């Protein structure tokens, strides 16, 4: 047989093989395992890649792969471990942190990462003209808030100090026990200010330094490709100080907004790690593919706000009756199904070692009694109560279930109203609602994150509720350095909150996602942060087959 003929018959064979399905083409994730390329779904298109300008979780995940702060998180339990800083000292009064930077930390352009970089970074973050939405994450630092709001003009008075090229000192306004945990947020990551200056004004938005070609990173990965509305590719950063231990060559972050599209994509072998799972498929995966579905606690609370400024809900007794007449167990078991914990208080249990003592309870009989006490026996005389939610199926079904519970158990007539996201937020801000759905995801692991929002006039209170004693307790906790005493103050505050009920806790979030067993080093964490430098892919013994439900 002559050579061309062999080729032709081989080709024919290949075509036949591909048609019949044996010798089927390699899927994206199989190739990924071979080449150490991780394919991961990452929600929506990021608004930016500049850590000073972003606000969302999607952006946070992307930036975590490219930039590294002074401290980073342990991939398993999130305790602070050395990042750019090799080690650090904390003064005995808990106010001064001194960081010793490693000398081999480099930007992806080969320049060393110095204390000066951090100084310039924080200056940029706090400069009012940049209008960084998350600048308040730095307000724990002495004079940072004054400079950020324009009251202080001289940045040298802010508590950041360059002691030498590799020693950086931060002075806090008050001792803050969770400060190191705070520093894991993207808003504390360094940016290459000298590079930024090359691409436009440093202290204003609209700078193009984050684009491919301009971008310089100091983390384990650096930007390779940015297809807007589709995906972002980062590749291994050869200048990273710990590059020897980074095993992935590339990560592809896909902007997939539809959970259904993402689910199908995962099942076809195009993604190693998913972002969320469609509500109705959670049970199916739990039953048929328990090795693929991962359910883990997530630091957040799903709750309803109550507008306490308008009758009849300005009456505490009515509020307490409504709060008691919700069967949270059934909601998490039959509706949300993602292993969520029913919430009987605001702060997720075990947040930095704090679990609220005070707990609400479900008691229909007591609820009916309370309602009668308030002058509405059997719901008579109570005008209909409106439940507002932003349009999304999962919010709707919960609202429908609660509507039914109130109706059946209390005789209370509830109406459900949905609004488009921004309209809903506007209604919430302007207290143009009666009861409305809300969620709160922690930025850092501390009960303060869940409790100080309820103080008088806090921008995220949005209920009109105000309690002087509560405010005093939260303030006192802010100044307290002893953890046990501090937690005790939070306990008292949360008890007041639960007694007054300006909100109805419903459940504590979980993170539900699909993941291929080939992914290693990806650990569940309560903030859903994952240090990508520890992740790698391992070949499996059996080839991938498309996942059928």
């Amino acid at each position, binding site marked *: 047989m002559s050579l061309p003929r062999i080729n032709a018959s081989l080709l024919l064979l290949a075509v036949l093989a591909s048609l019949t399905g044996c010798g089927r083409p390699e899927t994206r994730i199989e190739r990924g395992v071979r080449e150490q390329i991780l394919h991961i779904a990452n929600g929506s298109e990021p608004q930016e890649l500049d850590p000073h300008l972003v606000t969302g979780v999607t952006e946070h995940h992307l930036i975590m792969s490219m930039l590294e702060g002074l401290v980073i998180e342990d991939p398993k339990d999130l305790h602070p471990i050395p990042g750019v800083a090799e080690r650090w000292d904390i003064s005995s009064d808990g106010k001064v942190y001194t960081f010793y930077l490693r000398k081999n930390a480099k930007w992806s352009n080969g320049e060393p990462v110095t204390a000066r970089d951090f100084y310039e970074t924080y200056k940029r973050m706090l400069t009012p003209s940049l209008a960084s939405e998350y600048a308040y994450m730095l307000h724990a630092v002495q004079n940072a808030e004054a400079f950020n709001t324009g009251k202080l003009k001289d940045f040298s008075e802010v508590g950041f100090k360059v002691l030498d090229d590799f020693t950086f000192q931060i002075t806090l306004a008050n001792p803050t026990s969770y400060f190191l945990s705070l520093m894991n947020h993207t808003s504390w990551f360094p940016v290459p200010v000298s590079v930024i200056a090359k691409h436009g004004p440093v202290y204003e938005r609209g700078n193009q330094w984050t684009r491919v070609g301009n971008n310089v990173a100091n983390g384990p990965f650096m930007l390779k490709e940015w297809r807007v509305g589709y995906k972002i590719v980062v590749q291994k950063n050869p200048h990273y100080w710990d590059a020897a231990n980074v095993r992935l060559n590339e990560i592809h972050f896909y902007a997939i907004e539809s959970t259904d599209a993402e689910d199908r994509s995962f099942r076809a072998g195009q993604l190693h790690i998913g972002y969320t799972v469609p509500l109705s498929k959670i049970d199916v995966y739990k039953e048929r593919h328990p090795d693929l579905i991962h359910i883990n606690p997530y630091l957040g609370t799903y709750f309803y706000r109550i507008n306490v400024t308008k009758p009849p809900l300005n009456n505490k007794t009515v509020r307490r009756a409504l709060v008691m007449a919700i069967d949270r167990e059934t909601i998490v078991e039959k509706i949300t199904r993602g292993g969520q914990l029913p919430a009987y208080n605001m702060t997720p249990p075990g947040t930095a070692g704090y679990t609220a003592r005070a707990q609400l309870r479900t008691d229909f009989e007591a609820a009916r009694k309370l309602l009668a006490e308030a002058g509405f026996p059997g719901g008579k005389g109570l005008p209909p109560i409106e439940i507002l939610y932003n349009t999304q199926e999962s919010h709707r079904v919960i*609202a429908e279930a609660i509507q039914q519970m109130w109706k059946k158990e209390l005789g209370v007539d509830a109406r459900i109203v949905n609004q488009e996201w921004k309209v809903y937020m506007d209604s919430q801000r302007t207290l143009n609602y009666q009861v409305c759905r809300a969620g709160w995801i922690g930025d850092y692991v501390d009960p303060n994150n869940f409790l100080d929002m309820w103080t008088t006039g806090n921008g995220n209170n949005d209920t009109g509720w105000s309690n002087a004693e509560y405010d005093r307790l939260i303030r006192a906790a802010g100044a307290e350095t002893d953890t046990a005493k501090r937690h005790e103050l939070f306990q008292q505050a949360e008890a007041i909150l639960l007694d007054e009920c300006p909100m109805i806790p419903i459940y504590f979030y979980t993170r539900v996602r699909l993941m291929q067993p080939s992914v290693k080093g990806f650990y569940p964490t309560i903030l859903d942060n994952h240090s990508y430098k520890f992740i790698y892919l391992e070949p499996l013994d059996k080839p991938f087959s498309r996942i059928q439900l």
Partner: protein
Amino acid sequence: MAESPAITTMPAAEPAEEGVSLWQDAWHRLARNRMAIGSAIVLAIMMILSFGAPLIAKQKYDEQNLQLGAVPPNAKYWLGTDYLGRDQFTRLLYGGRVSITVGLVATAVSLVIGVLYGAIAGYLGGKADTVMMRIVDALYSLPLALMVILLMVFAKDMGTNWEQFLLQKFEWKTRLGEYWNLILIFAAIGAVEWLTMARIVRAQVQALRKQEFIEAAFALGLRKRRIILRHLLPNVLGPVVVYSTLTVPAVMLLEAFLSFLGLGVQPPMSSWGLMINDGAQAMEEHPWLLIAPGTALAMTLFCLNFLGDGLRDALDVRASKD
């Protein structure tokens, strides 16, 4: 071979009674069309079922059974239950009320505006046509989502306000507030859907205008109004009927999008569009949640379509004489 339409529509050969006999003729022809009559009957049954839902359904549309959850069709729940354990059959009946009303009324609104507007523009021609068509172009490009959000925000309480105004000023008791949301849906959908209709009608009228029998009518000095109503409109009926029957299902699905923006029906009430939306998300796990409302929608379209074709044939003087 039939006589030329140019002759049948000549005013001189048009005695006063012919209008009556024309409609009678049409009615007879329609009655003979079995597909059309069958469709009309099916449609009527669907309407009776939907609007008589409170009498027919044994269960309540909002009665939940969380412990039960979604189960496939069985003896007790003919079409199965949804996620919250509610009876799908009952919900389908109730949802039909919303969908059929919205589908028919909103299509009718778009039909009336679109046909009149298109006919006038196409008939007048020249500058008037230019201005009218450029307005259509402009309206085409305004984003629907934005319009609906604005409508919802600014017109939401208007119904209740007007109801009170009418009650106080004229002691006229209305239920405007209750039905306001529905009225807004008609307005929003009608306002979108008439645009394409107008373009189609205009194109048709423009073409017809140049044809002999219309030119003859002009030459005879007939009044414009008469020409438009008696000669132009009947002749654009074909495409109009076809496009309207296509509009109904589109409108029913559009209603679900409006609900998404907060303008449509509010839960626990549902509509076919919303049920299809929800069903599509769980088409693998709970296919019955998609199939039932999908079939209802398809049946409506098929029936309307056969009925529409029948109507068109019945009214079409020329084709019928083949």
